[in-house]
């Protein structure tokens, strides 16, 4: 049977082109891969190669023809034993469009802008607080890792100074002694490399905990967090998960200057395929990190250096795990909702205390998980208080506050009695000077001012 050679699309955008030259003539034998013609596309002159073996029986489009649409038959190729008569019947045909190139496909019905929200089963947290131990956030994080490592041999920790030095911030203290150097691994200072290593190991089914000395340095590794860890499950059609935790201190510490003081919540929160948590208290730290380690997805755990040394009551039950995707109402109130995460939860609680003295009842919500964000808990609170103040240490532009404002408009616009108001870090690189640093970061007073403003009490 003779084969029609069609005008090929030689670039993703080409719809027609000029058949500038025939390299083979009628009667010539061609082999697969041989150049038969030259075509000028919208971008360049390119060669057309034969895909099948045979003899050029008839040229349907003469050289020099402009505007030949993609998929128009341009020649007839005869297979072994055929003669030109077989080709004679072939007539030039207009092929309207490609069978299913992207633009030709019918447009789909307007899709929702984000995936359906997964329901998260909450726990009875009170129950776990019957048996508690006072410990620092640092110890809570360490215990979370140690307990999960005892439970699952596939869990291991790697990062700079995590083993022999016992952690740059002493979070991994004692782990090397208990688990040995097979599972607690000191890496060279090579974030891009060891983040990628962790992701590869997770593809193979291990459960790495990759510690970044701080998240500022994870910018070297963000390619693997986003491109390799977050996207592969989707690109693999669900075949290949990536059970990994990236953890370390995030956000401003104290007087460390611009390159060491930055909040990445909205950066990672932006990425589908990632979960992002930001613990505040010791219980948060332990319960959330344990959940993160057990979670089959990549989780970014944004800790805070200043919080490491603070003590809290932490449940002792090793089955105390906090579900990812659930916020916690830390203080109930009726007049204004204040959301915060990480260190700012404590600042918001202090502000709420003072607001109470002035007769304003603030409800403080600890977001705990940045992604998936617990919109329901926040919206329910706003339905009650009709006001929202969002607090974060990061920059405002495309920040968490911007996201919260948008989400509240989408889900409970009619319940808002005041514009959602944002409290955030100053829109500058972090200054070093003590007074300037204080000015750059949200303070209790800023939250109080914002709360009064939305409550029209200023």
């Amino acid at each position, binding site marked *: 049977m003779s084969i029609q050679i*069609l005008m*090929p*699309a*030689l*670039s*993703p955008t080409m719809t027609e082109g000029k058949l500038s030259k025939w390299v083979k003539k009628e009667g010539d034998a061609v082999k*697969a*891969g041989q150049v038969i013609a030259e075509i000028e*596309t919208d*971008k360049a002159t*390119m060669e057309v*190669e034969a*895909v099948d073996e045979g003899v050029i029986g008839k040229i349907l489009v003469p050289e020099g023809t402009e505007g030949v649409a*993609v*998929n128009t038959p341009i020649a007839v190729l005869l297979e072994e034993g055929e003669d030109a008569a077989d080709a004679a019947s072939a007539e030039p045909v207009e092929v309207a*469009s*490609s*069978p*299913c*190139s*992207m633009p*030709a496909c019918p447009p*789909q*019905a307007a*899709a929702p802008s984000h*995936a359906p929200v*997964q329901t998260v089963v909450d726990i009875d947290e009170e129950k776990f607080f019957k048996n508690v131990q006072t410990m620092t956030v640092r110890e809570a994080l360490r215990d979370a890792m140690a307990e999960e490592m005892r439970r699952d041999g596939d869990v*291991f920790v790697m990062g700079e100074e995590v083993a022999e030095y016992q952690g740059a911030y002493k979070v991994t203290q004692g782990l090397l002694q208990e688990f040995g150097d097979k599972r607690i691994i000191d*890496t*060279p200072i*090579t974030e*891009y*490399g*060891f*983040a*990628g*290593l962790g*992701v*590869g*190991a997770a*593809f*193979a*089914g*291990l459960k790495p905990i990759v510690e970044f000395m701080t998240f500022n340095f994870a910018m070297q590794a963000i390619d*693997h967090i986003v*491109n*390799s860890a977050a996207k*592969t*499950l*989707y*690109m*693999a*059609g*669900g*075949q*290949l998960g990536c059970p990994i935790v990236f953890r370390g201190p995030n956000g401003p510490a104290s007087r460390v200057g611009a390159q060491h003081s930055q909040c990445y919540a909205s950066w990672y929160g932006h990425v*589908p*395929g990632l979960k992002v948590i930001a613990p505040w208290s010791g219980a948060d730290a332990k319960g959330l990190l344990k959940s993160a380690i057990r979670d*089959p*997805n990549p989780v970014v755990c944004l800790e805070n250096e200043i919080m490491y040394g603070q003590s809290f009551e932490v449940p002792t039950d090793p089955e105390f795990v906090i579900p990812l995707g659930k916020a916690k109402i830390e203080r109930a109130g009726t007049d204004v909702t204040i959301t915060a995460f990480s260190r700012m939860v404590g600042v918001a609680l202090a502000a709420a205390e003072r607001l109470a003295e002035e007769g304003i009842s603030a409800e403080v919500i600890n977001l705990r998980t940045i992604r998936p964000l617990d919109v329901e808990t926040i919206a329910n609170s706003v339905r009650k208080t009709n006001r929202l103040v969002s607090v974060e240490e990061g920059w405002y532009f495309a920040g968490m506050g911007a996201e919260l404002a948008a989400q509240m408009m989408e889900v409970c616009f009619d319940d808002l009695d005041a514009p959602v108001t944002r409290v955030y870090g100053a829109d500058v690189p972090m200054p070093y000077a003590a007074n300037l640093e204080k000015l750059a970061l949200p303070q209790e007073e800023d939250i109080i001012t914002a709360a009064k403003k939305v409550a029209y009490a200023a």
Partner: protein
Amino acid sequence: MAKPTSPAGKAKLQTVTAASNVATPEQMLQFYKDMLLIRRFEEKAGQLYGMGLIGGFCHLYIGQEAVVTGVQSVLQPKDSVITAYRDHGHMLACGMDPKGVMAELTGRSGGYSKGKGGSMHMFSREKNFYGGHGIVGATAPLGIGLAFAHKYRGDGGITTAYYGDGAANQGQIYESYNMASLWKLPIIFIIENNKYGMGTSQKRHAAGDFLKRAEGFDIPGEKTDGMDVLAVRSAALKVVEHVRGGEGPMVLEVSTYRYRGHSMSDPGKYRSKEEVEDMREHHDPIEHIRKTILDGGKMTEDAFKPIDKEIKAIVNEAAEFAQTSPEPDPSELWTDVLL
């Protein structure tokens, strides 16, 4: 630190050539089939692209078939494989179904990633093929992660991580060399040196010698002719022995050539027609093995015909499937984001 025991120092001077008894006649015929399948598959993909059935980026492997065929011929099923975006050949060489690969190229539900990955992103847990990655250089750290898992589990498996001459300039490659050597990870870094990273020739993009760079990390290397599947196999046998023996990583630099443009829309202005023509006419890996088989006297020209037909049929069947498999259901948009 101990000096590398293996012939790293000499490797840059010497290229591993085909050992005389490196493959039986049956194996040679298998290599011919394997390479021909890749060649015909890629030609068909090029054709489907021309018909608008495949979109976006599509990087063909034509010319480089002997590299993956030779290397895979010495691996075991438990070994892991990872490569970049020029990945169709690797998937076929790993034994993945041509139908599933082609249907992924056309973005259909029967594709390996249900149409959600495309030409550059396919995976098979079953075949230990870990993609299919679009970021140049990423296969090195991801590869040492796979190798780390083999070592952690003590399962005796090794990893082959493929990347190009252009990728060899990425910093993450050297971060990976360092950790792989420090921790003696069972990995073979395979540089598919086709002389160009897109439109930039090796002369213009890479200083020094690739294997010398590895030497700095105490990683021994070998060079071989990637247009000769038996040479590749000979080199791979040597390298695999070292790596599987727990001696740590090795680099295998394979000299090869891609006949087609970097991707479908590359007019190829950076190299002469004569250069490409010379490689096709005088160094084609498939012709080379065919000739070796014929010279061996065990097969005649005619005996190849049914084989060529059989391969063509497999590819046509794949193309047919890739066009008839339905597009993914719109609900698939929302699945596989999280587990």
